[in-house]
């Protein structure tokens, strides 16, 4: 383990990974509460379209992906209850299309070809020095906003109509949550990869829920399991030379099934 920690790229990946683990865990609480896991899947796939657009247009890929994914998230938020097509169907059609477009564009561009695997499945080596501070600021901002609006987000997540009646700005909060999801997904792409980042937005809360008896307990367990799976996953990625995203998601799945087994034993 000490050898593992000696590398700067490992320290960097760990710092970024733990920050993102905490943010994703807190977001996963609302993803599970609002049954939005499919939105997470859709947004992460759309992110690849954004990466590709960046490549084609000569804009930094992650910046392009962030703007593109936020735009897409807002379209979903706006569509809710307005369109003839259900939200679910629209996500199912639109997002894989954006992803397919992304794969085609990236494959045609010779310089980015080898990066495709990294975007899809994450790469521990791909976190750059200059990215640590902006990601830390982003995580702090996301957590601050969620903390400030926590009980409003909870109320709106449980009962939109009653929350609105109580003066909670339900619609702006829906857009806030979608924006934070989009930004966090794009920020996590280097580490976890587009294909797997949506799992990172569901599994921590599911793990917390399996064991906790209270909302606070659920949040604490979600964050703890998320951080543990990032540390374990990055170590496995380094030790076995496997994509970091796959290692992280597998680690979190193992923790989830352990929690499930433990939880069902508690209940019997």
């Amino acid at each position, binding site marked *: 383990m000490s050898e593992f920690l000696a590398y700067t790229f490992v320290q960097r990946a760990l710092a970024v990974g733990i920050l993102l683990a905490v943010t994703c865990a807190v977001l996963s609480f609302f993803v599970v509460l609002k049954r939005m896991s499919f939105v997470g899947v859709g947004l992460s796939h759309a992110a690849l379209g954004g990466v590709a657009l960046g490549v084609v247009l000569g804009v930094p890929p992650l910046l392009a992906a962030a703007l593109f994914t936020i735009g897409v998230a807002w379209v979903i938020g706006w569509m809710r209850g307005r369109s003839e097509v259900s939200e679910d169907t629209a996500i199912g059609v639109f997002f894989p299309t954006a992803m397919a477009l992304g794969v085609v564009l990236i494959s045609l561009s010779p310089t980015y070809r080898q990066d495709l695997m990294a975007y899809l499945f994450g790469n521990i080596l791909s976190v750059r020095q200059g990215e640590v501070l902006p990601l830390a600021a982003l995580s702090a901002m996301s957590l601050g906003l969620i903390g400030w609006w926590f009980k409003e987000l909870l*109320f709106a997540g449980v009962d939109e109509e009653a929350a609105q009646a109580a*003066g909670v700005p339900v619609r702006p909060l829906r857009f806030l949550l979608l924006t934070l999801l989009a930004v966090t997904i794009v920020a996590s792409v280097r580490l976890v990869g587009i294909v797997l980042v949506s799992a990172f937005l569901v599994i921590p809360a599911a793990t917390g829920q399996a064991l906790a008896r209270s909302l606070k307990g659920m949040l604490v367990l979600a964050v703890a399991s998320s951080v543990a799976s990032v540390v374990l996953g990055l170590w496995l990625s380094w030790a076995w030379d496997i994509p970091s995203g796959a290692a992280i998601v597998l680690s979190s799945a193992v923790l989830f099934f352990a929690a499930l087994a433990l939880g069902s034993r508690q209940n019997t």
Partner: protein
Amino acid sequence: MTRADPAAIVLDRVSASYDGRPALEDVSFQVPQGDFAALIGPNGAGKSTILRLLLGLLHPTSGRVEVFGHPPGRDERPIGYVPQKVVIPRGFPITVLDVALMGRTGILGPGRRPGARDRELAMASLALVGLADDAARRFQDLSGGQQQRVLIARALCSEPRLLLLDEPTAGLDSGARARFYSLVCQLQHGQGLTLLCATHDLDVVGEHADALILLDRVVLAQGNPDEVLTGSTLARAYSFPKAHAHLHGAGGAP
């Protein structure tokens, strides 16, 4: 009604629509403070539209809406709102107390966590609906009738003087339904609350409410239950044969 003591609810020639589709036309009625009024009528009659107008979630296309003499949302005391149902994802550990405390959200405002006084109020509200001992239980483990009582406690938690209930007993069996309305009446008299309830429970409401408003986009009839629950007015609203109307409507409880 004097200036010092305005009606709890005033709708004066109110029309409203959704995307140009009329939902209410020229609706007028008043609910005096401390009364229990029920909105009845078929699906799509505009019952929920009236509740949305009173909550300030929808604006009338014409006419005047007032709550305790103020436009909706301007009264200093919040309105308690009780929805049809709240569904929480399976396994989510939201307790009965968590749900009741949500009633304090609007009063606390963002960035503030519920404190000791909020907890006291939530427990007191749960005690009023007979669920103080269940505060730590998971909300979804309660029966449908108990869940509705928690939603009342949540509404009471904001210390309202007006409760709006939107088909609160849909999906409850007749026993739970009767218990629900007797609790509501107890609160009306004990807490001095004004109640407006959208419902299809003609029989139970006929027994408990002070006034009924029979709606089908327009007001078809209003007054005390005996005046409104006649075969001919109900038949007009629900388009069913008069004999059947008598059986279900005016029949009521003995």
